[in-house]
């Protein structure tokens, strides 16, 4: 997605034949969609403690508890605001790797997102 925007900026300012190029990029982006993934929070647990997704996947956490929670990366990669009942937080994992996270209010709640091509 990021690459697509860079190309767009470039062609819009410089290349006359950009329309064709943009069309090509857009098609390519559409051809490789990464389905989103979701993690439910309930009973003071992340319901899928470990999920494996492909690079580019957007993961969405939803708090189903009647107590607020947070979703905070152990390594400072992402950090949600406080999620009250029904609130959601999304993060797109661009690169492969293993991303541990926890609820900073109830730190015994932990989970991992494994990003693998």
């Amino acid at each position: 997605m990021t690459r697509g925007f860079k190309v767009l900026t470039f062609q819009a300012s410089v290349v006359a034949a950009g329309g064709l190029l943009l069309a090509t990029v857009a098609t390519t982006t559409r051809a490789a969609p990464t389905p989103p993934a979701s993690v439910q929070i309930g009973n003071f647990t992340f319901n899928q403690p470990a999920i494996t997704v492909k690079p580019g996947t957007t993961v969405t956490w939803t708090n189903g508890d009647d107590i607020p929670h947070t979703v905070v990366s152990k390594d400072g990669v992402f950090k949600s605001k406080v999620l009250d009942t029904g609130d959601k937080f999304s993060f797109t994992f661009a690169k492969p790797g293993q991303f541990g996270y926890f609820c900073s209010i109830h730190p015994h709640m932990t989970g991992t997102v494994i990003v693998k091509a």
Partner: protein
Amino acid sequence: MFDGDDTGRRDFLKCMAWAGTGALFAVSGGVSTSIGLDAALAAPLKRSAAATPFTFVQLSDSHIGFNKPPNADARATFREAIAKVKALPHQPDFIIHTGDVSQLSRDNEFDDADQMLKATGLPVFFVPGEHDMLDPDGGKAFLKRFGKGTNGAGWYSFDHRGVHFIALVNVADLKPGGMGNLGAEQLKWLKADLAGRPSSTPIVVFAHIPLWTVYADWGWGTDDAAEALKVLARFGSVTVLNGHIHQITQKLEGRIAFHTARSTAFPQPAPGTAPSPGPLKVPPQQLHDMLGITDALFVRGHDRIALIDSTLSA
């Protein structure tokens, strides 16, 4: 009432019998015992000029802003708790609030709690709970309002009529997979704060999360509490007051007496009796039996703090 003679004390303890729950918890001369009211009345009183008897009240887990089952209005039940304090036959010297003042650290939640507490006309000493750390700056909003002049994330100490009170914060900078946490900086401060104090000084420690492990699976404990308890062990009378778990538990370890208070907002299940520590959804007619306040009586000479828990329905 507090002139130290036996008659006055008997009357006083009788006054406290309104508590209903009848749980009287006492620390005496380094040996802590749970005693009945009758035994307390019969106990001899040693006179001491060092300090006059006094009481203070512990409020906890008001969760202002909470509005889900089993309590649609945590403001209303906090107001009831405060009315109960105002109606005490002997007015406490001050109030301590052991955290989770708010549900979501919102300004209006802190504001309402502040206004309601101010109506008592009593000094209030706070420590934050994890629900008070939810502003974007991770606790600054709470500190600005309730923690002026405190150290670090909000810890401090003060002396009152010969008793040394220590307010600890174990909800800041929590570690993945862990429980409550005091941290190296605070432990260093605690050591310095206690250094040079005579072991005969009665100590009251208060913090949000229990300073002993009530139930690790739900994070109901403090990872580095042992370090704090080590420096407290030499004192003859130590009382540790916590909240967080919205129910009464107590424990003795050496000369240290631990006690957790009820919430004024909603009860939580006993350890391991539910799939999660979420609010216990009791029927409306039961709610007030499970919310309450703690009244603490200190009588110098006994080196004893009697804790009396009473419910909002009592």
